[in-house]
């Protein structure tokens, strides 16, 4: 039974959660003797006040769109893919291999190859937990978490021992060829006469990510596979009754999920530092969980939360530069936002439902 209008459900609940999260953050900032209003101002101007800030905000947003999408697709099949982080790391390996060892004539061929390679690598990394769940019944939450650690160790080894140029002390690959530089918003928006900061790393992958959102929507609501994924997610028993193979759905949903998480690396490796560094994912795999939670695992619904976390990431690093508020504070703010919009969703929802009930009764 629906007690709340849809707009309240989709907009009001996350908005109120957000306000509570920010209010609590303000208290924490006050407690360490800083001015929360100034902090907020700094975050806003730092992330949204200039095209430079936007360049970074949208760069992070792109990461979160792809990891958020990855979590969403899996969650539509009621599979909690916590392994976006690891899948994106391995995706990064795919990007690096494609970019380092194949002499590409131009950036777009390289980008397509990098997308395919990262998707393939990410999907393979998700395939093992998926297979274990589908065949052996090992819980996907546990296995995907464990695979994050395995991926981190693997990348650690590869970057320090295998892929590191012998002349370098840095556990990272060599820089990619300049031809492979992805067009940034400065180049793209320049075509239509908009002046955009040259240094913001947001690039063409933003549009690719948005296109993936639309494609994911079509997949889920317009195709048989999407119908089966959603049916399986709503009721495994009913899916069985309909003759939908649970093995197929678990595998396919997780492969798509892993592939999407993997492609995030194209943005953060090719679009960012132009080489594969240690910890290139920067927690985006986990932020993707929060983004999916806030966006109700809806491919279009995750766009706004992805932007929100992009803002928090960029605003947060500005804060660390401009004030004595430590970098950890940003992590606290982000954690509060995740906690209130995701985990404590019902804390806001229940009272709001009661409020709407009371209003309706009076009407």
């Amino acid at each position: 039974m629906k007690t709340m209008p849809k707009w309240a459900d989709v907009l009001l609940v996350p908005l109120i959660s957000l306000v509570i999260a920010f209010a609590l953050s303000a208290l924490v900032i006050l407690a360490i003797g800083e001015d929360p209003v100034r902090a907020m101002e700094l975050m806003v101007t730092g992330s949204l006040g200039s095209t430079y800030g936007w360049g970074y905000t949208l760069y992070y947003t792109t990461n979160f769109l792809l990891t958020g999408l990855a979590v969403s697709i899996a969650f539509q099949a009621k599979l909690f893919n916590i392994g976006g982080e690891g899948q994106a790391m391995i995706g990064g390996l795919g990007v690096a291999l494609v970019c380092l060892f194949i002499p590409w004539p131009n950036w777009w061929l390289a980008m397509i190859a990098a997308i395919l390679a990262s998707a393939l690598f990410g999907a393979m990394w998700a395939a093992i937990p998926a297979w274990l769940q589908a065949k052996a019944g090992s819980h996907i939450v546990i296995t995907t978490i464990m695979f994050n650690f395995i991926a981190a160790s693997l990348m650690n080894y590869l970057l320090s021992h295998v892929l590191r140029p012998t002349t370098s002390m840095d556990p990272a690959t060599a820089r990619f060829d300049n031809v492979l530089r992805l067009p940034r918003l400065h180049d793209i928006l320049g075509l239509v006469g908009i002046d955009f900061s040259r240094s913001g790393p947001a690039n063409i992958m933003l549009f690719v990510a948005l296109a993936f959102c639309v494609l994911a929507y079509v997949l889920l609501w317009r195709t048989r596979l999407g119908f089966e994924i959603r049916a399986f997610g709503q009721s495994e028993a009913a899916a069985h009754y309909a003759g939908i193979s649970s093995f197929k759905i678990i595998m396919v949903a997780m492969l798509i999920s892993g592939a999407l998480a993997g492609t995030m690396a194209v943005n953060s490796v090719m679009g960012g530092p132009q080489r594969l560094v240690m910890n290139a994912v920067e927690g985006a795999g986990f932020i993707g969980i929060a983004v999916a939670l806030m966006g109700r695992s809806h491919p279009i619904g995750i766009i706004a939360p992805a932007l929100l976390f992009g803002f928090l990431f960029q605003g947060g690093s500005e804060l660390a530069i401009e004030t004595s508020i430590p970098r950890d504070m940003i992590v606290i703010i982000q954690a509060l936002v995740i906690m209130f919009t995701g985990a404590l969703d019902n804390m806001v929802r229940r009272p709001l439902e009661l409020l709407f009930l009371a209003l309706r009764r009076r009407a």
Partner: protein
Amino acid sequence: MVADVTGGAADAAPAIELRGISKAFGPVQANKDINIRVRKGTIHGIIGENGAGKSTLMSILYGFYKADSGEILIDGKPTQIADSLAAIRAGIGMVFQHFKLVENFTVLENVILGSEGGALLKPSKARARKLLTQLAHDYEMHVDPDALIEDLSVGHQQRVEILKALYREANIQILDEPTGVLTPAEADHLFRILKGLREQGKTIVLITHKLREIMEVTDEVSVMRRGEMVATVTTAETSPAELAELMVGRKVLLDVQKTPAQPGEVVMSARGLTVTDRHGVEKLRGIDLDIRRGEILGIAGVAGNGQSELLEVLAGMMAGTGTMTMLGEEMDLTLRRDNARTRREDSIAHVHEDRHRCGLILDFMAWENVAFGYHNAPEYQKNALLMDNHAILEDAKGKIERFDVRPPNPMLTAESFSGGNQQKIVLAREIERNPDLLLVGQPTRGVDIGAIEFIHKRLIELRDQGKAILLVSVELDEILSLSDRIVVMFDGRIMGERDPEQTNAQELGLLMAGVTGEAA
């Protein structure tokens, strides 16, 4: 404590009196200004269709919901019942349709659960054992206090629930659809227990939708319809037909009208169907069945005797051994090649007995549910990649109209329809595929009387079109009135076959309890 002396004929205050109880869930008014008096020491029936508000009313009385307005008087005394603890303190016990017992605890442990009365179990267990023996003796409810719940039959589990309430000194017992899971013999025993309780001065409230039970055991009966209490009558002065009319608000045909069956060729034939679950327990033990065109084969039995497994094996949801041929073609019972989808392609449709868990996706809209299971059908595809949602929606509109689904809105989620209308959506989907064999489990469980009539008519129509129907139901009346042949199952076996014209509920009841025809 002031007794209500204005009460009239009754010399004592009523055990329960509800005054002006109202309760709304959002826009739905579940209870509307309910007034009821349950006299002390009587069995009071509450009858009504599904969704009439019976369960809501009893949940208010037991403290699960708080009424929006109105008051509750227990023994004439206004009582606030904020939670089930308060209800227990007021002397109210409740036996739910789905028992609230801890399966791997003993009877004794279950009885003291929640009223252990101390950190150490030993003294309270000893006390409980003594009292339990006493109670069992007084009310003829013998159960082994040290037996594990999971080892008890359903009937015995129910007794534990009743004992639990008695242990808490409940003077008022509310039973919610208590016979749904019992054999006729077990039900009779339950009624004897209830009558015994009444003699000891206990007050019983019996919630049911079965008219026969009301007539058999109650002193008075209150009828609910659409959240309102429409009448309270003395049972001796009413008739099933009158009660049915009060429940539905119009005259109801209680009997199914049908012509004799014209059975044709064998459609499906099964030999030695056997299913072993993963604990190694045989759920089906060598079932042989033939079903012909133009007949309804009814499977009678107490729930849990293999009927569910039989349906699922035939429908391709559960692997088994033995053989099964459909229209002369061998089916793969191991399910390495077959599944529920291939069975549909082999012209077997399946109305699952649990429409909430399996038959429908509750969060999907009605139109999506119309395609569910048949979503690969060519007429639902736009091209190789995309589904034709528009075509499905149009198809759903037609089915909703032809099956009189109310409200006729394909955009509502399945969850927002009443039980009867949900079932109509499932039936529309399965019947209109024109299957040669229709497997139907519990077609009218949780379905209101009006819809039952409609569903029965549709099944007979399908039969008359020369289709084979395998009907599984725990409602004996339904089996007796619809079937052309009746097969009784017990403990995974077929106990015997009977002609509905030449048998009765008593004989079937014995077979359902595992007593073979010769011994009966």
